[in-house]
């Protein structure tokens, strides 16, 4: 039954390969991809069922026992990420039914999307550091392709920065892998965690851990390494923006959570309580200020991703059971809400032909349901009860209060208020503002499918956010379980090494 761990990686990969075989049949590609997304979602649920029975699930690939082979590990955090990523995967595919241009479908949109998802799932499930690097590269190169699909000037401009920063990050990651291997002679995460305890020279460990932190910090768009994100995320097709916003930066955060609970916990005062904490605080402050300065919906939302990453980093930095559980809750909530806001910006774009706030207006009258869904997601992002964002922030902030860290508390609350400001700015311009004169000569973007396909994922994700708020207790239990596993790494180590 352990082979189930392989399914979330193998299915999208297979779908990607089949999509390449049926290169000239976009319709068939779409069906295959949607089938794969549904199956991935079911397999994630299956993983939860197996985990409840057997504990942490480990698959040793090729029958090679750890630490000699590659292990795939599904603990509660990894499974939750797989489940939420599969929902975003399916949502994006359905949204694309209406919004993706025929050209992009002809030039490999679906194969790339499937392979990117395979890379994301691989990063969640792998228990081997070099294997993680390989999954990162698969995810990256597919995302490069998605980012420039269409080849507009703005896309190419953004892509240069995105590609350069991500390749730099990969090189640093690889450097860190080399140094770590030189130090402990293994790359299995559980085995590394055990062997590092025997290393006496703490300085070497700190250097390697900082290299990893910079590499993952670039992926996660943490301060001061986030510049590629505002330069690129608003440029591609809206479904691509949405799936990037939902999944890619969160993979960086997920890996930080994995590494800084399992492997690098030698010097908490330095790595967590000073560096990660202040990086987190600055990330959220600068992200939210950057968002406040923008005047286009997609740019506001893109820059805002950075600010949300800050909360997750702060939660990791505090490193108490409550904070880690809050951080995990926050990641899941943020993936749902952020993706949904991007989807909504897409619907707005197809109704008005622009993302610029000044050219929008009157949407509340024209499309009241859209207004309701936007309000649900935006207020959830800002953290108003009873939506999911309220509980995510509430848990993180109560963890901060428990540590009596008043500065962090101040920034966390202030950033939350500024988030509300940005969201209300979109609301008052786009929804309450006067409907602008639409000149006949400006070309309107054309939908390629039925418009209702765009509403399916938006409705579903808005309801999910509401549900995560109303049933917060249920989700919080899983978050606590995940946090327990992270903070007691001997369960993970035992499951992988089997000692």
């Amino acid at each position, binding site marked *: 039954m352990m082979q189930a761990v392989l399914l979330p990686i193998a299915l999208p990969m297979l779908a990607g390969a089949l999509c390449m075989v049926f290169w000239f049949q976009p319709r068939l590609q779409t069906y295959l991809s949607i089938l794969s997304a549904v199956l991935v979602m079911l397999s994630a649920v299956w993983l939860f069922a197996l985990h409840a029975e057997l504990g942490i699930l480990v698959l040793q690939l090729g029958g090679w026992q750890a630490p000699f082979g590659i292990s795939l590990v599904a603990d509660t955090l990894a499974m939750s990420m797989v489940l939420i990523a599969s929902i975003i995967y399916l949502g994006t595919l359905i949204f694309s039914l209406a919004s993706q241009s025929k050209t992009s479908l002809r030039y490999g949109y679906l194969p790339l999307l499937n392979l990117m998802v395979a890379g994301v799932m691989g990063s969640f499930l792998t228990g081997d550091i070099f294997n993680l*690097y390989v999954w990162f590269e698969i995810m990256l190169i597919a995302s*490069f392709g998605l980012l420039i699909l269409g080849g507009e000037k703005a896309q*190419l*401009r953004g892509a240069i920065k995105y590609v350069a920063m991500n*390749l730099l990050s990969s090189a640093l990651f690889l450097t860190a*892998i*080399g140094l770590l*291997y030189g130090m402990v002679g293994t790359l299995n995460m559980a085995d590394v965690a055990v062997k590092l305890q025997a290393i006496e020279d703490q300085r070497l460990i700190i250097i390697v851990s900082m290299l990893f932190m910079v590499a993952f910090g670039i992926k996660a768009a943490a301060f001061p390494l986030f510049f590629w994100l505002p330069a690129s995320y608003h440029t591609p097709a809206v479904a691509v923006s949405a799936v990037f916003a939902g999944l890619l930066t969160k993979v960086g955060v997920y890996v930080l959570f994995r590494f800084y609970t399992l492997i690098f916990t030698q010097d908490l005062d330095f790595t967590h309580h000073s560096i990660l904490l202040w990086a987190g605080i600055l990330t959220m402050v600068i992200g939210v200020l950057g968002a406040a300065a923008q005047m286009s919906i997609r740019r506001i939302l893109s820059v805002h991703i950075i600010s949300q990453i800050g909360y997750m980093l702060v939660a990791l930095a505090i490193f108490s059971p409550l904070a880690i559980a809050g951080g995990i809750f926050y990641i899941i909530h943020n993936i749902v809400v952020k993706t949904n806001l991007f989807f909504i910006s897409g619907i707005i774009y197809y109704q008005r032909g622009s993302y610029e706030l000044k050219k929008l207006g009157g949407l509340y009258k024209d499309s009241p349901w859209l207004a309701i869904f936007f309000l649900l997601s935006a207020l959830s992002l800002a953290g108003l009860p009873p939506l999911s964002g309220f509980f995510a922030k509430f848990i993180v902030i109560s963890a901060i209060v428990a540590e009596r860290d008043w500065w962090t508390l101040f920034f966390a609350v202030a950033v939350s208020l500024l988030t509300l400001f940005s969201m209300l700015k979109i609301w008052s311009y786009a929804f309450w503002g006067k409907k602008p004169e639409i000149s006949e000569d400006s070309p309107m973007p054309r939908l390629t499918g039925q418009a209702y396909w765009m509403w399916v994922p938006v409705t579903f994700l808005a309801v999910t956010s509401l549900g995560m708020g109303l049933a917060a207790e249920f989700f919080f239990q899983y978050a606590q379980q995940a946090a327990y596993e992270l903070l007691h790494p001997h369960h993970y180590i035992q499951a992988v090494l089997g000692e």
Partner: protein
Amino acid sequence: MILIMAFLIGSMYAGAIYMMMRRSIIKLVMGLIILANATNLLIFTVAGPLRRGAPPLIAEGSIVPDQLVADPLPQALILTAIVISFGVLAFAVVLIHRVYEVIGVDDMNNLKDDSE
């Protein structure tokens, strides 16, 4: 040997970072290429001592090798890393070519967001 390699790798990293901070996008990609190679050399050097003429073969009948042998894993890592960086850099080269065709500049300063 280690010392020579250390200086070599260090200067490659320095050169790569310097190239990446120049304004020309061609130099940016050259920087990335040097960086990828420097990283591979680094793995080669730090992952265990360089040991020549001792292949990791186990004599028939025994379970472990009789003497210290070269560690084959770093070479597998480097090989994978070379293949990946080759693919990614090929993409980067095509990308800068396309950028030059479409936008007509090779200066990072002219690639700002608002220069519509």
